[in-house]
């Protein structure tokens, strides 16, 4: 007579271990493969956050002390709130640059503002670009690698510059 015991302990089959191991290997390989794209995605998300911060500062017309004094003298229109809107943020991969040992990405921000002179728009655009670069540096903790204007902004594999904002 066969003695059948009740199995209360559970078990892992060899097949299960093999599939789980295979999954981990595949995941690690994929992670290495996509980490570069993931970094770029993070950087672009940070740039968008920064650009939004820039337009909020522009729209509410609350500026750092130095800019405020400058605008009081030369750009009085900017002292009052204005309607600024981000339309689109694009990037262009300009290839590997041995100088920084990283791939260069140029950001191009498209924005919209009504009733502003071109010199005022330049000031607004510079602030949007500044905040976009600053946000990238803060996300990747690379403030120490760049200058006070965060130009260029560095991530681990890329460095970012900004073209003048295009007003549409």
């Amino acid at each position: 007579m066969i003695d059948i015991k009740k199995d209360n302990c559970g078990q892992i089959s060899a097949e299960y271990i093999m599939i789980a191991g295979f999954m981990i290997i595949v995941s690690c390989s994929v992670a290495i493969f996509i980490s570069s794209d993931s970094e770029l995605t993070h950087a672009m998300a940070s740039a968008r956050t920064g650009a939004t911060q820039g337009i909020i500062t522009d729209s509410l017309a609350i500026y750092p002390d130095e800019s405020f004094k400058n605008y009081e003298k030369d750009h009085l229109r900017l002292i009052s709130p204005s309607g600024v809107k981000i339309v689109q943020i694009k990037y262009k991969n300009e290839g590997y640059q041995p100088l920084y040992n990283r791939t260069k990405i140029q950001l191009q921000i498209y924005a919209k503002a009504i009733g502003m002179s071109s010199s005022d728009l330049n000031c607004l655009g510079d602030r949007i670009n500044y905040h976009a670069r600053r946000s990238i540096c803060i996300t990747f903790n690379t403030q120490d690698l760049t200058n006070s204007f965060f130009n260029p902004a560095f991530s681990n594999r890329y460095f970012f510059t900004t073209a003048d904002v295009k007003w549409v």
Partner: protein
Amino acid sequence: MDSHGSFSIDLLFATFIILIVLVNTSYIISDRFNLADESKELAEARCLAENIAGSINQVYAGGNGHKISIQLPTYLNKNNNYVVKVNGSGVLVDLDGRKGLAYIIPEKISKSSNVLESSTITLSPGNQYEIINKKDDSGNNWIVII
């Protein structure tokens, strides 16, 4: 009957994927939270400047003897490190070194109702102030903030 349950490889794989997605999105989410917080602070500062400027204009338009009381908030989005300065140029909010100006109509602002002279008045968080329209001997309307 199997009363102990089991982990399928599908569940493990799905959990792994969800964890990766959560870690990735958490960066973006925390960025956006910070942005919303900072924006709220700036928006409250702008609203405060415009509200004070609006009250001053209203008192000026109301004529001699018109009076409005204003109460400054203790905090602008958890930040009480702000001051408001009022003079003939307008209402200036200074929030941690960032400045915003709201224009006003009257140019004659005084901090005393007895001696009417142009001055810059500093308003502090949490305090209450009265904005009064007072006419001087020459017939000019002054805004007095006490």
